């Protein structure tokens, strides 16, 4: 399935774009996606930490990703 991943803050700099498209196997988990992303963008692994959000909620590594989910990379937040 094709998915789109939104990027914010430093993740946007690492992608060189506010969003990227990826091909992901059906029934992939958040962990699978993280692995794929870090292979393609090794600088992600150098961050202090980061989370993935699925449909505007922080996701857990075991969560399954579905086509048309809104996925975003959430690098360490620094609002306020």
């Amino acid at each position, binding site marked *: 399935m094709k998915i789109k991943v939104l990027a914010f*803050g*430093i993740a946007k700099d690492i992608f060189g774009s506010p969003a990227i498209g990826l091909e992901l196997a059906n029934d992939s988990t958040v962990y699978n996606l993280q692995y794929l992303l870090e292979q393609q963008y090794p600088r992600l692994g150098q*961050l202090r930490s980061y989370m993935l959000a699925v449909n*505007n909620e922080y996701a857990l590594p075991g969560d399954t990703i579905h086509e048309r989910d809104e996925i975003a990379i959430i690098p*360490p*937040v620094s609002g*306020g």
Partner: protein
Amino acid sequence: MTTQIQILSTPLEIQSAIYWIMSPESGGIDIFIGTVRNTTKGKAVIRLEFEAYEPMALAEMEKIVTQAEEKWPIQKALIHHRTGVLEIGEIPVLIAVSAAHRAAAFEACRYIIDTLKQTVPIWKKEIFEDGEVWVAAHP
């Protein structure tokens, strides 16, 4: 509880937040105003830039206010957060809480700003004379 949660690209208005948060039922209001400081770790800051993942940031701020309401008897809560370029002295965040008694307002206000800084997907870039850095991104 009545809430007002907004992400704005225009200057935050202290006075209108105060008008909104005050009510005849309240015995006190507590306001936290974040301001852009001119240094970080001894280094001069020229300006800040804020970026938000808006739909999720709004949802996370709603959650924080709901948690605060579960912990303390508060009446109204307001969170306004800026995005875009902010100069020194400008206001990136404004939080206001009203309650019948002051302890609840103080504690809830502090809880809201402390939790916002940990969970709400908003990012701050510091711009210096000689470069720029996304705050907290690297170890």
